[in-house]
């Protein structure tokens, strides 16, 4: 048995140690906000926070997910997460939306670590998250908006 703590709740799972966290979250726990995009850590759709660090759940075995796991479902209750979500809505970032949960998870982790990133820091931090709809310019603008205390608090 493996115990996962997801959004503050403990889950006892009977899964192999090497099962990627992504599939444990999606298929076993049944939470669908974390997405499968590539399975090799190239796209970021599966991003969760593991003890606050943006982590690719598709290559993280459940045996290595011993800390606090936070998913997109909990971001509305997180002050920084909600600011980011609101900026996404204000600027109409999403097109299809499939990658945006992962983008928001990554952006939120960035802002928690670095509340006022410059453009270069944002671009570097977000380079691992793919968006096939091509919403990058709005993602960048939304992160800048969320980081700006004047407009987002």
């Amino acid at each position: 048995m493996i115990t996962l703590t997801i959004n503050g709740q403990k889950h006892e799972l009977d899964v192999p140690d090497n099962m990627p966290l992504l599939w444990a979250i999606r298929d076993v726990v049944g939470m669908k906000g974390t997405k499968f995009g590539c399975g090799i850590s190239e796209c970021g759709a599966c991003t969760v926070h593991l003890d606050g660090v943006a982590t690719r759940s598709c290559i993280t075995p459940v045996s290595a997910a011993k800390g606090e796991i936070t998913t997109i479902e909990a971001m509305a209750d997180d002050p920084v997460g909600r600011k980011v979500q609101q900026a996404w809505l204000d600027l109409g970032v999403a097109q299809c939306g499939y990658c945006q949960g992962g983008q928001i998870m990554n952006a939120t982790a960035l802002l928690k670590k670095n509340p006022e990133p410059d453009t270069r820091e944002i671009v570097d931090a977000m380079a691992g998250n793919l968006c096939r709809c091509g919403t990058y310019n709005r993602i960048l603008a939304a992160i800048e908006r969320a980081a700006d205390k004047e407009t987002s608090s």
Partner: protein
Amino acid sequence: MSRSDDTLLLANISRRGLLKGLAGGSALLLAARWDLGLANEQAQFGAGAMPGGWVDDPNVFIQISSDGVVTIINNRAEMGQGIRTSLVMVAADELGADWDQVRAQQADADQDRYGNQNTDGSRSMRHWYQPMRRAAAAARLMLEQAAASQWDVPVHEVRAEVHKVVHPATGRELGFGELAKAARELDVPGRDALVLKSDDELRFIGKESGLINGELKSACPKAIDGEDIVTGKAVFGADVNLEDTLYAVVARPPVYGAQVKNVDATEALEVTGVKKVVRIEGTGQPAVFKPLGGVAVVATNTWAAMEGRRALKIEWDTAPAGGNADYTSDAYRESLEKAAQSPGKVIRQSGDVETALKNADKRVSATYYMPHMAQAPMEPPVAVVRIRDGKAEAWAPVQNPRATREGIAELLEMDKENVTVHQTLLGGGFGRKSKPDFVIEAARVAKEFEGQPVKLQWSREDDIQHAYFHAVSVDHLEAGLDGEGKATSWRHRTLSPSIASLFAPDPKHKGEFELGMGFNTMPFSIPAIRLENPPAPAHVRIGWFRSVYNLPHAWAIQSFAHEMAVAAGKDHRDYVLELLGPGREVHNLTVGDGWNYDEDPDLYPIDVARMRRVIERATEEAGWGRETGKGRGLGLAFHHSFVSYTAIVFDVEVSDEGELTIHRADIAFDCGPQANPERIRAQMEGSCVMGIGIALQSEVTFENGVAQQSNFDSYLIPRMPDAPKVVRVHLINNPDDAMGGVGEPGLPPVAPALCNAIYAATGKRIRRLPVGNQLS
């Protein structure tokens, strides 16, 4: 939008539409006009020409509950273009609904009830704008009639305001919710009784809102799925959550047309969680929308299914694949480049090109290549199917619900009435999800598990290696210039396998719907023109990719026009404006295009004035002609597709080490009347980024019939650092023309504009895509 209202209505008249709902007098009148205007029954265009046609019955699309909540049925696939917001907004605006009380509900697959649902060809808004407005106007009139009846006053004394009907003379008012029940009992008014709102009565349609070129002008009406998307609650195909779901993945033949010879599943069945291994019959070539065949592994979760698949030992029989097993894309490119040196099937001809070329003062010649690409939506194909009691139910992210339903019915030998297809959100489509092969695969596996849902997930490797690939293209152009640099002749040979090879024995030539994507519709005014299409056989499964054959045609023509300008020593913009000639309407039939995106060429001719206008706008906004300094330059391209007009200018810089920086993109776009400018801008921005990937990165190559790329580490698509630093979209406000497409027309000019900019910056001419490391 007075002219477009009238003319679109006329274009929408199909026999089916006439029979279905037009009130007597108006039907006769319109039918008479239709006969006068369009000659005969075969001449059907627009929404009426689509399978299932259009429907404008308010009882089909609009439900109002007694608490005032307005539910609008969306019958088109939402794949990122924003149609669930935009089309619902159109209906809500015409109805007069309070946006906060509007909900969207996705239609199941049922073209008899909902009209055409095939979300493809940038058609949703241009085909459904009018029917949805009429449906909403009819519902509004019914609410007014219900109120008038309750107050016992003539209906012309009442009027609908936002979410209520008022009687100004007495100050009485009733909410939509209070009137809903009585309104529902009334007959649907005839179309002749409907009066659509005038532009100044509209609250949403055509109104600019949201983020405009980096500035938040005003809040836009909330996107229908916005909150669900940012909180992780939106339901895409894989997010359908049913009790007792089984999970499946499929090992498919590595070569198109190959089949399973032997499979040893012993080890796969030993993987924890694996339940069963199922052989899936291949359907051979042409594949149509049917599964490729292979071996499915079914398990209690996706990971176990993937592990089980890794443990399969499969021997493939490549004999049924024929020559596909020898297909190597590099050799194929060379063979097409060679074939491009000889004449091909003549598609369009005017003047004597050979003589004009011979007599030219200067000749320009170039050959361009665009590789195979995979659509690679972020959500790989996935579907859930449950079969029980002789009925099938599917949940899937599909662009074409009808083909999905019929494909499942055919496989299971059921009446389509026994097949229900629920459409989820699509995590991107780009043409991939026009083909429901993955849902039919899921149905095939579900057949083994009566009563139990099966979720069939494609991995990214599956998606890239078994795409319906964008066809490779070689385009060879030659032009003759006179002493002044003016073009006297233009010869263009295009070679590319046809999508028709997906449905029938390979024709080896492009069809009318492929040539009509910017090849024969090339609008330049040149005395001698000869367009040819030599043969090109297909060796992989080919299918639509966003904007389809417009991609290679625009890439070649727009690059070559720039090469001609350079050869003539003229400014590129001035030169192409001269090539285009004066503003005029070119009727499609005069250039051999009998397709025109299924639209009426009288309504939607090739409008050179509109083409010129987007070029002028994009270049003005970009500061065309300004001094850029060493290693920096501006590049222009433009294209007409999906009956809309796009021009783009890139400002790029290339370092001595060959590192490219895209400083800015200026996009001018004219789609005629704009329903939701906010989402039109978003489509242009997204097209720009996707097009940069097409120019710089994306390529699938084949060795012995096997795709050599398999995931985002080898099949590259743009990342945030690849995006332009600034993207500016300049919408041409043009309400007097007929409405055009939006989802695709932004894409074709991107790659040539970028490569022209690279030339301006470096003098390096790109003729083979992707650019890759050609700059270093």
